[in-house]
């Protein structure tokens, strides 16, 4: 028989009875592209995706938020620069910084929006080779204690798609040293640095670990046959199950 996994075959998630009740908001800006994909990932992980519109002024009762990839406002000025000022972003910033520490995941353009919003330090500039690049990328999970990585083993290597034009992560040396010292480098590129990012950094978190941003796309590695051909193809699902387990754990 064919080795290609059939759809629906490979994704078996141990669903906690309370997981389906968990609501994860997915934000859409004009120019967002991966919102439907992020919603699918949330669904496959066992939770309920909630559409959030950039111009909205409330987060409702969501338990976590995903800011998906794309080219908000065309990324014409700087990636994420205009989206950062959306009304919903100030709600997200407040909720992320509040005592409740709302889990927030920024993927690709979402990561860029989080740095423009100063929820995460540093910034992204054009890839060192100046071209858009789409590839299956191996990452190492350097920190499995954040809200979005608890289901991974520390040091685990996962393959998820990467696709961007402005993906070169930069920050000054002091910031980089601090990120390293505090364990806030959450993901590192393995084998190949696709964009020239400082210290092979693929993703980082804020100090409490509820806000995580990364350039590669875990939401494109949640369904066998529709993601990377390296590995199981579903190695991104852990992001979404991690946050669910965290939510359920916190609510206990």
């Amino acid at each position: 028989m064919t080795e290609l996994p059939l759809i629906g075959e490979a994704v078996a998630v141990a669903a906690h009875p309370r997981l389906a009740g968990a609501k994860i908001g997915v934000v859409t800006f004009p120019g967002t592209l991966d919102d439907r994909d992020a919603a699918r990932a949330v669904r496959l992980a066992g939770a309920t995706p909630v559409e959030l519109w950039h111009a909205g002024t409330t987060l409702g009762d969501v338990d976590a938020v995903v800011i998906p990839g794309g080219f908000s406002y065309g990324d014409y000025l700087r990636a994420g620069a205009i989206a950062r000022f959306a009304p919903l972003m100030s709600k997200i910033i407040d909720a992320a910084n509040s005592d409740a520490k709302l889990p927030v995941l920024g993927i690709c353009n979402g990561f860029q929006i989080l740095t423009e919003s100063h929820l995460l330090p540093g910034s992204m500039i054009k890839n060192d080779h100046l071209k858009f690049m789409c590839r299956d990328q191996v990452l190492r999970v350097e920190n499995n204690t954040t809200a979005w990585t608890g289901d991974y083993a520390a040091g685990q290597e996962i393959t998820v798609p990467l696709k961007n034009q402005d993906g070169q992560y930069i920050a000054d040396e002091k910031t980089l040293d601090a990120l390293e010292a505090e364990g806030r480098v959450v993901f590192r590129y393995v084998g190949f640095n696709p964009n020239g990012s400082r210290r092979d950094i693929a993703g980082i978190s804020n100090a409490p670990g509820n806000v995580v941003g990364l350039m590669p796309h875990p939401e494109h590695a949640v369904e066998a046959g529709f993601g990377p051909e390296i590995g199981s193809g579903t190695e991104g699902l852990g992001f979404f199950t991690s946050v669910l387990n965290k939510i359920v754990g916190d609510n206990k």
Partner: protein
Amino acid sequence: MPRIVVDVMPKPEILDPQGKAIVGALPRLGFTAFSSVRQGKRFELTVDGEVTEEILAQARNAAETLLSNPVIEDVVNVEVVEA
């Protein structure tokens, strides 16, 4: 109509991939006089009517908050140009 020009450059300590590509390409075209190149942005904001102090302040403010990202860029110039 008068315009306000805002110039934004990558911070000197930040590697500028576009500038680097250009500095690599220049000698191949016979332009050998330049030891480094940096690429930034130039914005031209059109003002209907006169440029008041208040409007210039708005431009400076927009330059710092929206048109540049202080983590990686500096606003190097904000000036009025009559057209």
